[in-house]
Every structure is written in structure tokens, then in C-alpha cells.
């Protein structure tokens, strides 16, 4: 681009007036109520909110797995109607297939590529997630952190433009979770895809996100959007970090002290 300031933030995802309700018997549950949200290309956005506020529902609708009742979702200006390999969803669990080896799992989106190319791509992503030597292992033989890395590698292997993650680190112990956050950041800084990650962990959103979208519960609305303009790595004891933390807790309506 000749003009460096021309397109600083290129709009990738545009959500307008999104509503979603579930019917349970003859009861109606309004889960998402008129959400507006924009995500820029290459941005790392965290969606933060208490359990049951509709984060998964929002992400499922964004991923094209569920239909909205009102409103629109455009990605690159195109209406989202179904899942698409350009936007890969990483599930908290059950994402990778227990019957397939690490290699086969990562190759899931590459079935129609020539075998040679497929092997090259798999090898590249096995290396990226540091699982060399485990190519022929089954998920049952891997630790939780390793499984989650396989899920990430499987997603990245198809070079998606967007990765949606629904509490991807939720099942891990706190030390592994820290290591995995670092890993996620490293991969994101290298591949520069757009990431929308759902979490209920304030520190997780603070350490990962460019912007944190805070949701309220029942019905899910956006309580506020907080840009986290802190350089990586982010030190949780820094005062700027803690100022942001207080802001997030404030939006969640929760006291941080115990």
C-alpha cells in the first residue's frame, strides 16, 4: 500500500443485531439479545463472560453451526450460513478424533490434497506444535495439553483465515494452561490469522487479547469492549495490567478480591 495509514483495520467479521433464542418445551429462552460486534483482520479477540451467558452460542452462530433468529453475520462482507474450512472451530473437548493418530487428525482437512503435499503440511504443523515423534500416537496416549495442541495444529493445517476457539484451555491444569497461552500467542504472531477465543477466565483474556469483549448473562449482551494495548509478554503484576483487570471485573460486575 502506498498510503500506510489507508487500511489500518480491515474489517473481517461484522455482527449486527444478532439474536438467538432456544425453545425448551413451551418455554423460550432468549440467549443472545441484539449483539453488535466487529473483528478486524488479524486481530486476537477474547469473548469473556460468566458461564451460561451465551458465549458458546455466539461462537457456534459465528462458526455457521447454528442459525441466528435475527440479525446478520458477515465475514469479508459475505453472509455466514454454514461452516467453512476458511474458518475453523476448535472445540474444548471431543474436537480431535480418538480413533485417528496425531498424523491422521492433523490431515483431516487435507484429504483431497496429493499425498506428498499432505505429508509435508502435516510434518510442518507437527513441528510447529512440538509433537515430533508422536505422529503415530493416538489421542488416548497424549496428555491434555498435547491433545489441545493437536486440535490447534489440525485447525492451522488448512491455513484458515479465522480460528474460533471455545474455551480451548478450559480442561487443562493451570500450569499447562499458562504454557499453552504462550504457545497460542507464538503461533498467532507467526501465522497472523484472526482469532476469536471464548473464555470465562479474566487473566486468560488479558494475556491473549488485543480486545476483550465482555458479555453479560441472560440475555447475553455486550457489556463493554476493552482494548488491551499492552505489549507481549504481559506481566500480571504490572500496574497497567491490573488496571485493565479491574476494568474487566467492573464490567462483569464481580469483585476481584476474596
Amino acid at each position, binding site marked *: 500500500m502506498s498510503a500506510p495509514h489507508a487500511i489500518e483495520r480491515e474489517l473481517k467479521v461484522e455482527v449486527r443485531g444478532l439474536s438467538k433464542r432456544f425453545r425448551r418445551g413451551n418455554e423460550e429462552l432468549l440467549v443472545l439479545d441484539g449483539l453488535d460486534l466487529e473483528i478486524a483482520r488479524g486481530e486476537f479477540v477474547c469473548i469473556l463472560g460468566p458461564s451460561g451467558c451465551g458465549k458458546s452460542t455466539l461462537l457456534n452462530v459465528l*462458526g455457521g*453451526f447454528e442459525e441466528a433468529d435475527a440479525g446478520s453475520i458477515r465475514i469479508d462482507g459475505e453472509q455466514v450460513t*454454514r*461452516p*467453512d*474450512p476458511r*474458518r*475453523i*472451530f476448535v*472445540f474444548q*473437548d*471431543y*474436537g480431535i*478424533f*480418538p*480413533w*485417528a493418530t496425531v498424523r491422521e487428525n492433523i490431515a*483431516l*482437512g487435507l*484429504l483431497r490434497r496429493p499425498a506428498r503435499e499432505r505429508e509435508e503440511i502435516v510434518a510442518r504443523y507437527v513441528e510447529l506444535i512440538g509433537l515430533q515423534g508422536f505422529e503415530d500416537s*493416538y*489421542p*488416548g496416549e497424549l496428555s491434555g495439553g498435547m491433545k489441545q495442541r493437536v486440535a490447534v495444529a489440525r485447525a492451522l493445517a*488448512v491455513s484458515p483465515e479465522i480460528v474460533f476457539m471455545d474455551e480451548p484451555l478450559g480442561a487443562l491444569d493451570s500450569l499447562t494452561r499458562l504454557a499453552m497461552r504462550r504457545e497460542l500467542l507464538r503461533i498467532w504472531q507467526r501465522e497472523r490469522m484472526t482469532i476469536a477465543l471464548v473464555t470465562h477466565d479474566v487473566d486468560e483474556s488479558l494475556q491473549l487479547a488485543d480486545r476483550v469483549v465482555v458479555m453479560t448473562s441472560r440475555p447475553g449482551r455486550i457489556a463493554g469492549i476493552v482494548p488491551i494495548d499492552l505489549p507481549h509478554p504481559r506481566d500480571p503484576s504490572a500496574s497497567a495490567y491490573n488496571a485493565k483487570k479491574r476494568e474487566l471485573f467492573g464490567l462483569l460486575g464481580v469483585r476481584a478480591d476474596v
Partner: protein
Amino acid sequence: MSVTAFVTAALAAVAIVASRGLRQRAQAVVLPVATGVLLLALWHLWAESTRYEIATPGEPVRTVEIFPTPHRTLVALRELMSDGRLVRYSIASLFRVAVGFLLAAAIGIPLGLWAGWSTRASYSINPFVQALRPISPLAWIPIATLAFGIRDEAAIFIIFLGSFFPIVTGTMSAVRSMPVAYVRSAHNFGLRKFELLAHVVFPAALPQIITSLRIALGVAWLVIVAAEMNAIQSGLGFLIVDARNMGMRYDLVVAAMLVIGAIGIGLDFLVRRLERIDSVRWGFTKE
């Protein structure tokens, strides 16, 4: 004779009680062996208690048991081996079971996958599967005989029915209980219909399919005996009826029962080996 059996039974009982002090691995050997010996000795004592005497003029008095002793059963087993009936009849029964069972698997697995996947298929297939399932395969014997005559086909048809329903039902529920995330991932990565079936639905259902095959083969082997009792001229079921009808040979009856049990264990062992295939082991290990 009785005394020996008594002493043997007592020793076996003592071994069972005394094994408490042994290590677990030793108990794993001692307990089944001792229990087996105890049961054999009790069987012998009981059979002896049914002994009676036959006095034929001009001949020495013979003693015969109404129920065969373990020893007489063993002799009968040897008779069956040496006159070739054991192998011939076992093969005849196994052949019928194999054909009926494989036919049931070949039709039941695809049908179960389809009915588990498609709501429309389930609406049309499931009510009839559920309605026919509780009918014992043995109830079909008259119909089978009417349709196929007294031939292999009739027994094969009975075996088919006995294995078909567990396989369809098991496969169907396997597909239905599959986590949504599997299918969503597959759609997400752009898998087409056949790829979805081959790479996701089938492998996800496979452990439960194997379990249903195991149940089905068990049922098939249970049912074959009755299916062959119905005037077919070969097979282990025929052997049992024939041995009784032709001269009250209860020693042959019991020998045939033992063979049926042993083959049943062997079949189950074979199916269980399927559980060790790498890509299904996840379905059989609980964390």
C-alpha cells in the same frame, strides 16, 4: 470310587478356603482350578447316586447311571472324536453360524448406520426393528421351515434373525450417541458425504459396533443348537437330539454340550480380539 470323589471334593474345598492366604496372581490360578475340580467331583457323586443295576438273564449284572459321570462323558467325547462326528458336526454348525452372522453384519451395519444418521430412515426402519426384536428367533422356526424346507437355509435364516437385531440396534445407537463436535468438525473441514462416513461416522461407531457383534455372535451360537434340533441331519444341535432319540445316549448329549460351550468361548475370544485394534481401543478403555 465314591470315597475318592469325596476326598477330592473335600481337598478342592479346602484349597478354595486356604487360597485366601496366597497372592492374587496365585489365587487367579488356584481358585478356578480348585472350583473346577470341586464341580467335577460333585458332578461325579451326583451321577453315581443315580446308578442302577440291569440284570439280563444269562449275562453279568451291569451297573448304569441315569446321568453320565464325567468319566463316561470323556469316553463319549473320545468316541465322537474318533468316529469323526465331532469335527463334522462342529463344522456344520459353525458354517451355518458364520453365514447367518456375516449376512446379518453385512446388512445390519449399513442399515444401522443409515437409520442412526438419517431421521427419515429411522422413522421408516426403527419401529419395525423394535417390533420384531423381542420375538425370539426360535419362534421363527416354523416359518423358516415352511419357507426353506429342512435345509441349511432354514437354520441360517434363524441365525440371521438372531444376530441381525442386536447389530442394527447397536450400530444405530452408536451413531446416535456420537458427540456433535465430531460431525461439526467434519463439516467444518469440508468433508463430503462419503468422507464423513468413512472418516468420522463409521470409526466413531466402531467400538459399539464391535460390542454389538459380540452380543450377536453369542446369540447366534445360543440359537444354532435349537435351530438344528429341528430335523436337520447334522450339527451339534442335531447331535444332541439324535443321541437322545437313538438309544438314550446321555453321555453323548453331555459331551456335545461341553463342545458347544468350548466353541462358544472360542468364538467370543475371537471377537474380543477385535477390541484390540489400534483405532478402536479408545472405545474400550475407561480413563
